């Protein structure tokens, strides 16, 4: 089905350069002819060159000298008043609720650039962005919000962030359409009053041209090369992963474990490596460029995701695209990506023994690795390839645009 791509899309709250999946989506949309505007605070000088079709709406950060900030804010305000005085009134009605002056100025700084401008769809790639920019829901443009994992599954349970629950409810109520990365995330979001009639699942995708397997016999000699990628945050359950690796070593399996990524729990991870005596076995690479990730993936024998919570892991889909069998915990939408005993193994969360049992099966059986790796690659080609995904997003946006046109 050919969808009309003649519409203007605003993507809000992106930190540039964006995550791989978002970059892929934005590129796919601009290539399809959609007029995409990205609003972001930080922008690297090269990004304009990287995609000349992209439009930018720069929202200045609320940092630096107070005087400069105020001058910048005043000049933005003057321009905004000329562009869209009615929008200023809309924003003001929201901001009056805030009490603290500094907080109010910060909010104005965030919103003024949007006054007097219109798009056919406004897209929030994160729930937190939608909550931060909630006055934009009143501009009269249809709004699409994405739910991706942690902000739905984890953060709302933090007793110090209970306001997030209200934010989720408010944005779900007012959004035209809500996108979820997995069925499981949609199910979880429904506990924050997400109407199933206006929610839609589009699972993430990978560039299968870039992530593809190396031609080889599936073995690395004696050494079992295990790998994981992801930010070093507690959600990734790396403590359990390292514990499982220790159990495997104790059984006499020789292996190497590559961890790619960085994050706030780096200290926890380095300590656990040290405490479990895994210094020689585990290699902590920090953040790597995409090429580095790809080449490590293609040399690995298996991928491990020991997360305690996920929406659906992009890292796992990338690994599957590289023909790797996957051991994943059963959290969030992981079962939607990996079927137990087909593309890998699905084990319970927080269970190092179950993880190590599954890994052992793969470590001792190169045939099994090869078979599951092939199944993984086929599954990705069938369900998680980038071209299909861009088409799904175009359909989704077109539905939103057409509906709103009809309503007008």
């Amino acid at each position, binding site marked *: 089905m050919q969808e009309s791509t003649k519409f203007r899309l605003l993507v809000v709250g992106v930190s540039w350069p964006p995550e791989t999946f978002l970059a892929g989506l934005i590129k796919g949309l601009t290539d399809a002819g959609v007029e995409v505007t990205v609003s972001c605070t930080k922008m690297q000088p090269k990004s304009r060159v990287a995609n000349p079709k992209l439009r930018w709406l720069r929202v200045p950060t609320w940092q630096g000298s107070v005087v400069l900030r105020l001058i910048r804010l005043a000049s933005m305000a003057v321009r905004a008043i000329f562009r869209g005085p009615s929008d200023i009134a809309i924003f003001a009605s929201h901001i009056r609720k805030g009490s603290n002056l500094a907080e109010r100025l910060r909010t104005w700084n965030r919103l003024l650039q949007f006054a007097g401008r219109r798009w056919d769809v406004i897209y929030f790639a994160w729930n937190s962005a939608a909550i931060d920019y909630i006055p934009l829901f009143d501009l009269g443009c249809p709004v699409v919000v994405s739910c991706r994992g942690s902000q739905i599954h984890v953060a709302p*349970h*933090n*007793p*110090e962030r209970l306001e997030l629950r209200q934010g989720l409810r408010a944005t779900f109520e007012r959004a035209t359409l809500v996108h979820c990365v997995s069925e499981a995330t949609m199910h979880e979001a429904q506990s924050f009053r997400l109407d199933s009639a206006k929610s839609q699942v589009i699972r993430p995708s990978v560039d299968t041209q870039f992530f593809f397997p190396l031609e080889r016999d599936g073995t690395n000699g004696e050494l079992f090369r295990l790998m994981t990628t992801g930010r070093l945050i*507690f959600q990734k359950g790396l403590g359990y992963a390292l514990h499982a690796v220790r159990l495997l070593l104790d059984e006499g399996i020789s292996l190497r474990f590559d961890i790619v990524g960085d994050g706030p729990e780096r*200290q926890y991870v*380095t*300590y656990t490596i040290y*405490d479990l005596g895994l210094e020689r076995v585990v290699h902590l690479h920090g953040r790597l460029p995409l090429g580095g990730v790809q080449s490590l993936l293609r040399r690995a024998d298996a991928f491990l995701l020991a997360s*305690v919570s996920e929406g659906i892991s992009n890292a796992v889909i990338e690994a599957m695209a590289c023909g790797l069998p996957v051991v994943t915990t059963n959290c969030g939408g992981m079962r939607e990506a990996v079927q137990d005993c087909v593309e890998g193994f699905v084990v319970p969360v927080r269970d190092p023994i179950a993880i190590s049992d599954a890994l052992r099966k793969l470590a001792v059986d190169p045939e099994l690795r090869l078979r599951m790796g092939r199944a993984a690659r086929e599954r990705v080609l069938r369900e998680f390839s980038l071209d299909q995904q861009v088409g799904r997003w175009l359909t989704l946006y077109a539905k939103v645009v057409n509906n709103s046109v009809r309503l007008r």
Partner: protein
Amino acid sequence: MRVTIVVPSFPKLTETFIVTKFLGLLERGWDMHVVCETTDLADWDRFPDLLRQAGTRHRVHCSWPHRPRWLALLLVPVALFRCIFKNPIGTSQYLLNGWRLIGIDALRRLYLDANLVILKPDIIHFEFGALAFGRKHLKEFLNCRVVVSFRGYDLNHFGVEHDRFFRDIWDQADAIHVLGEDLWRRAMRRGCPADRFHQLIPPAIDANLFNPMNRMHTDFAGTRERPLRILSVGRLEWEKGYEYAIHAIRKLKNQGVCCSYRIVGRGSFLEAIAFAIHQFALDDDVQLLGGLSQAQVVEEMRIADIFLHSAVSEGFCNAVLEAQAMMLPVVCSDAGGLPENVLHTETGFVVPRRYPAALAEKLALLGSDPDMRQRMGLAGRRRVQIHFRLVDQITSFEQLYSRVMQSNAEAGGEADTYICATQVSLTEG
């Protein structure tokens, strides 16, 4: 003899031991001073002992502000003037040495060390290893002795990725203080020469403050009418391994034991802990109480049946000592100095870290056996009263400081282990 203690913040609820040590040594006639980054007036009110003693406020010196930068720049001449006025010889010595070694940067250092220059201490005691990192110049510039304490996180994971991270401290410090055998082994694993002068001084507890009154463990616990009351006290950080404790509670519940688990403390790992509670569907069984005052903690300990401590990284753990003083049987992991702290099968159970099933098993055992809880509770209190007395701790610090000053005469002389009286009896016990 003037001793200056360096800490990040003073007084602090989670670091009561610094306050008791400061007061104890002051009482015995040592000229004690504290240099810290911050001091919160609200926190002073929580330490009546500090307020009772006259002049303590003037013995606590806050560092000059580092930020904003422009303010720090403006204050550099003020700090310099003050240093010259209060300690002309020391300041010129500092600047001369500094100029020779690090050039103009000496002025910035002087600004950061202004309080130490003014105080002219005989001994500078860094209460945490991490604080001494990058300050090896002080010993030479101020011509004083340096003592460094290692209390856990500093040796466990500070700079653990770098092989020779604490090299300067091993070379320069006149004495190393560690809380127990395990920390000393860690220090050696991280490059400290085995013959370095060090002293093991375990933490101490005021057994009068942590008074269980006449508590008795007579109830069979674990039923709906009388749930097993489990308590943890500690900052909400990954080091404390709360996810494993919560997992153990889930296992306990699966075995049909009714329990109520209360956690005292706050910290940056709150989200992970709250999520674990939600994931294990324990919202009704686990309560996060936030930070509580010492009196409130004592009250919580009086109600509890068992103290649970599931740390993955630990120094020695004062909260576990306090729990033993409160006649609480302890179920804990074997992280860091915990096996030295709790006598396995005598005052509680020590199980391998990261094993929720083992924690659950011991919790269930204690829950079903009030006599055992009573016996272990009594043994725990006795242990604290004998081995972890405040007076002994203060005496040990006096010995440490005296020895450091004596070794002044025999510079670079004998370097050996010095185990204080308490520690000898502890290892024998």
